[in-house]
Structure formats: structure tokens, C-alpha cells
């Protein structure tokens, strides 16, 4: 089964801007969606001034919110 790679930056700058909220939003998705996501924490995505940052399928998303990451995931789920 193909999965969607979602990386959340857990570096200090992103942590301060609420990256844990992004992680929690994905963790609490229903199992049928959560199971299709390869969720990983990373330590830096090199765009620290625009946190919280995430990377979905290789594309870096800045100033991300829980709602927006869920929308992006919805659009990209295999």
C-alpha cells in the first residue's frame, strides 16, 4: 500500500510556534486516513522564521495550521 509522507518539523523554532498541535491533528485522524500516512518528525526544514513548518510529499509548507495540514493531506492521500 502506498503511503503519504508527512514530515513535521520539531525544531525549537517550530515547537515554539505550535508544531505539536500539527502533530496532534494528524495523530487523531480516523484510522482509515491515519493508516495511509507515514508521519515523521524532523529536526529542521530550513525555514525557521516561518514556522511551524511541515513537508508533505517533499513540498515544504510554512506557517501551517492544523486545519491547513489536514486539507493538504486530504488532497494528497493515495
Amino acid at each position, binding site marked *: 500500500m502506498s503511503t503519504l509522507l508527512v514530515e513535521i518539523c520539531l*525544531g525549537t523554532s517550530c515547537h515554539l510556534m505550535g508544531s505539536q498541535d500539527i502533530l496532534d491533528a494528524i495523530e487523531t485522524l480516523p484510522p482509515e486516513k491515519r493508516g495511509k500516512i507515514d508521519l515523521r518528525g524532523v529536526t529542521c526544514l530550513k525555514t525557521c522564521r516561518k514556522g511551524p513548518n511541515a513537508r508533505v510529499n517533499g513540498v515544504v509548507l510554512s506557517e501551517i495550521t492544523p486545519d491547513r495540514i489536514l486539507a493538504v493531506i486530504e488532497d494528497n492521500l493515495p
Partner: protein
Amino acid sequence: MHVSEVTKIRRKVLAEVSRLALEGTLEENIAGILGTVVSEDGPRYRCCVHKERAVLKDRINMALSQPIGTPLSEAAGRALAGERADLPAVNLLPEACDRCPIDKFLVTDACRNCLAHNCIASCPKKAIMVVQNRAYIDKTICIECGMCKRSCSYGAIIEISRPCERACDLKAIVAGSDRRAVIDYDKCVQCGACKVACPFGAISERSEIVQLIRRIKAGHRVYALLAPAFIGQFGPKVKPEQIIAAIGRLGFHAVREVALGADAVALAEAGEFTRAVPAEQPFLTTSCCPAFVTMVEKHLPDASERVSTTVSPMIAAAKAVKEEDPSAAVVFVGPCVAKKAEALRYPDLVDFVLTFEELAAMFVGAGINVAETDAGAHLTAASRDGIGFARAGGVTQAVLDTLAHMSPGAVVKPQRAEGLADCHAVLAKMQQGSLDANFLEGMACQGGCVSGPGTMTDPRLSAKLLEHYAAQAPVATAPDNPAAREEKDLHRRTK
């Protein structure tokens, strides 16, 4: 712990102030923060960019520990000179306060102008009438008893309370004549609950990061006293040794764990209990939570004599540093806002107090990523019980374990209270003698220090990580810890 937009703005201001202070360009570039934190095309939370920036100026003054309304370059200059205005720990930002409504009961669209009119029938003051096909409360007559709300079959009458007022268990924050919040400092114990509650971010603690950075840059030996609640605060995957190493990279001379001070406190407090209860007093309360101690002083002064005279773990740890290195500067880093007020009582021992949030902002300002910081192994010098001080029940556990070792015959009947309302109620009962307990642990924050207003991690997560860290401690209790000793001078006053 949800990071709201308001929280993000506060943190951005602190990180920018840190960055500029570390770069040495704070005075020239302070006004630039107005543009970087709130951009012309950025998200807007207030009516216009001008209002947004007026609010931001209040926030910057608070970040510099300068009075509200100080011109920014002057405020920056004073902070860089090491000056701190004589401000309480918790302050209202007048521009940010949205002057929430003070009408307590409001009839909503759900009112159907029914035939029963239970609201009108229930009102003891006849303050309700029907206007334009809907119930209307005459505010000049209403005594805010709430009978109408309870009687309405549709639940159409709602009770509105200001978040700051609701959060304050001690009724220390009220609406002023212009509906702006006013803090009554005769009642306030600086716990920071109102700061957490306000959705407009209109209450903030003052910060001393610039004054601290000045000391570090001047080459002083600055020691960080790290409160045990630090576990998990910088992200779930960050190891304690990485946090300690990152503090070193900021230019601190050394890091000490306050949990070791907590071990000394457990020994002193257990000794005090053995001597005083029940011979001199019917019960003893803890003294490690400064908001609890101040609550007793201000709201239940008759019970002041029941509060342990033992100093807090912060003070015990600070004493140890100053004995070893008298010219050191001591910075307490913790989850607590009330510690900023406590530190003012000990100007010779504690030089600065930072929250975990402020420390993280300093890391960001310095470009230090704790998650990528290399660090060697770290073994705590404190006991499991000393680390446990950071969560509710931990102090009780430490004192019980110490007493079991020190005076096995002692009869201890512990009681716990969390939240200032609970602390007040339980202590009042114990004063009356209507509770069968002789030891009270008072914590102003629900869940203890891990839930403090200066934290960054959901306390459910950080409490678990704390347990895990405590379990790795080489010794379990304070008496087992060779690094901890009962010191005679760990008392605030002699009875």
C-alpha cells in the same frame, strides 16, 4: 496545549527581542519588530494595522520590563543598561484589552417569547419584560442572580463572564469604569491564570531577557537553575541533556537542577514537621509554590503561621550556587510566573527568572535548535522524589518518604489541594479543624508545576515524560541522596 495566535505573537516578540539583543542592534532596530511581527499584508486580528502595532508596543515594553507607554527606543536603551522598572510580575496591556461586556445575563435569539414566560415569573426583582417579541433584561434593576437563566425552558438566556475574571480564583481582576480589566494587586498572587485565559492576550508577565543577555555578554558567570518541569518542554523527542547543552551554548556558565534544591527542601520540611506537628501547631502546609504562599498571606493571614518556614527549592538551589560562587548571577528557569514575584524577595540570591517559553524564545533568537544540539549523557544529581516536586502530589510523596526514613513513628495525614480556589477552601477547613489532616500540599496550578503558565507542552504529556525521567534517578528519596543535606539556614523566618 493549543498554541493560539495570541501566544504566537507573544513568542515572536520575545524571540525578536532576544535576537536583536544578542546581535547588539536592539536599540536601533527595536521599532522594526512592529513590522516583522505584524506585516501590512499579514493576518489581522484587530481593526487595523495601527491598532495592531499599538498593542504590539505594549507587548514590547513588557518584554523589556519597562512601563507601558515608554517610547520603544528609550525602553530598549533602559533594558540594555540593565534597568528593570518596578513592575508586578503580571501586568495588564491596556491597548490589548478588548473591554469584554460586563452584562452578565443576555437573552439570545433562541428566545421564542413563549407563553409561560418562566423568566419573568422567576425574576425576584421584576427586571424582565417583553420588548419586540423577546424577553429583555433591564440592567438597571437586574441583580445578576441567574434565576432567569435557570428557569428558561429553551436555555435562551446565557451567562457571560469575562475569561480573566472567571480564571481568577481570588477575584483579583475586575472590569474598571471603562470596562478595561483592572488587576487588584492587594488580592493578586501573580499566578498567571488570567494571562492564560485571556483570548486577546491582554495580560502578560514582564520579561528580563534583555537584562539577562546583557549580563551574559558582559562575561559574568551566569548559572541557570532548571526547574524539574523542564522535561518535555522543548519537544517530546528532545533529551534533557540537549536542553542543558543548549543553555550552555547561550553563554550560561553552568546549569543546576532545582530538583536537588527540592531534596534539601524535603529534608528541611520533614524536619520541621517532626518538630512542630502536633507539638506547636495542628498542621503544616508546603511552601514551595509562591502563589500558594502569597494566597495564604493575602487571603487567609490567620493561617500564615501554618505555612512551612522552609524556603522554596528555587531559593535552596540558589543558596547552594551563591555559597559556591558568590559573584555568580543566578537565573531560575521554570514554568512559573509567580516565581518572578518570589525572586524579588530574595534579591541577593536570585538575579533573574525566566519561563520555559522565554528560554525557548532566547534559543530561537540565538539560532539554537535544541533538537539538533549535540550533547553527552546526563545523569540527574537529584532524587526521584526531588524531580517529582514538579507535579501535584510530588511534594507530599517526598515529605512522606523522608519522614519514613527520618522519624518512622511520625503520624502524617496528608491532604492535597490544586488550584487556588481549592487551596483556599481546604486550608480554611483545616484552620477550622474540620478536616482530619495535618499536612497540606498547596499547588496554585491544577496538576502542579507541569501545568504552569510558562510551559509549552501539554501537561498530560510532560507529566508522563517527567515520571520517566524521575524513574531514572540514581536514588529514590532525599535521605538516600548524598548530594542533599538538611541545612539549618533553609528557613524563611524563625517561629
